[in-house]
């Protein structure tokens, strides 16, 4: 499990710092986050937007980390079904109009 080519160390560092900053912010402001989220209603957007932001920053960091560690996909061949059912031929008589 080893990667070829240049490893994206800069990207890892950037998103890693971003991820640490986000988690530090959550730790620092956890009371405000919790009380605001607990209000529900219009504040629904807060927890949903927060997890989308973390998905992007921490998700990119996590993906880059595996890449840097050399754990990358082996191939990208699209999976296809082994056998496909043949399309049934329409044998019904076809109506035609001769003008």
């Amino acid at each position, binding site marked *: 499990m080893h990667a070829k080519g240049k490893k994206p160390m800069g990207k890892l560092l950037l998103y890693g710092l971003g991820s640490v900053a986000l988690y530090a912010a959550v730790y620092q402001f956890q009371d405000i986050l919790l009380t605001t989220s607990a209000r529900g209603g219009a504040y629904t957007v*807060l927890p*949903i937007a927060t997890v989308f932001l973390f998905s992007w920053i921490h998700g990119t960091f996590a993906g880059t980390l595996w890449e840097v560690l050399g754990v990358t996909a082996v191939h990208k061949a699209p999976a296809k079904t082994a056998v496909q*059912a043949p399309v049934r031929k329409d044998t019904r008589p076809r109506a035609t109009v001769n003008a």
Partner: protein
Amino acid sequence: MDMLSEATRFIQLDASGIIFLFIVGFIGGLVSGFIGSGGAFVLTPGMMSLGVPGTVAVASNMCHKFPKALVGSIKRYRYGQVDIKLGLYLAAFAGVGVQIGIKIQNFILGLWGQAGSDLYVSVSFVVVLVVVGSIVMVDAIKSARSCSEEQVCSLALRLQKIELWPMLTFKKANLRISMWFLLPVGLATGLLAATIAVGGFVGVPGMIYILGATSLVASATELVIAFVMGLAGSINWAMHGMIDIRLTLIILAGSLLGVQLGAIGTTFVKEHMIKIVMGSIMLIVALSRGFAMPKYLGKLGLMDVSEATVALLDKVSFAFMVFSLVVGAVIILGSMIRAKRPAAAPVAQEA
């Protein structure tokens, strides 16, 4: 809905609780990225064991599932495994299935109370997981023995030949089938999601054995269904203010690492490994729920069981649930290490 005061809703987190959630999140993510679902069922009882109220545990768990499914599905889309159209159709039908499931739950709750409802959930768990898990496991063992390419199930081939309007074509899954055969798979997925919170245990086998998708496409497409359903469910919970965002983000820290490793793992191993992992987890979880049944039978007066026995069985049940996830993770990591990377195989470069 049971509205809890803020003081009782959100617990104090200590280091051991954070580490526990991170590790379970990672292992759950690994399993979800590989088989498309099934990684999150340990988290709700796990959070409850830390003192989190049931509704907050369910809400916070669901709120971590949809971003995890999003990241996993994007990763697997890059590998050409996701059929978005199929996922969206099934998610729409599953949404209807969830509503039917809730109606059934409420009906049983009114008829036999909480213990009756819990028993219904446990019986559903055991019956569905034993039946479907056995089918998946037997098929996986056959595929492993034959060492041949994955074949489409004969039932799926027969259904694909039936020209019943409206016919739907799914290019990535490489199949054409009537919407009327898609509908029950989606409904059953939603029904199971509403009952045992793991719709993928029916959704993935349904896509494989009824629709005729490969295990790779089925497990990857299940992530799309999980994203749509998880997002809708999370919005619902967030509107009631039930999400503990700290719990969600700690689990997400582990699961985003795990789900991408699981997705990468699908490119390392043979397709029958997905079925082996799924079948193993389903059968062990069925056993786990079997241990929980005497408690509910006792509450309904159908069985004589002491409190000490119930407490012991609860612990055994939870231990088996954790064990199922660990078994899944060990099989995935073990098969990845065994498969390694063939020297001549082209390397996928991804963003």
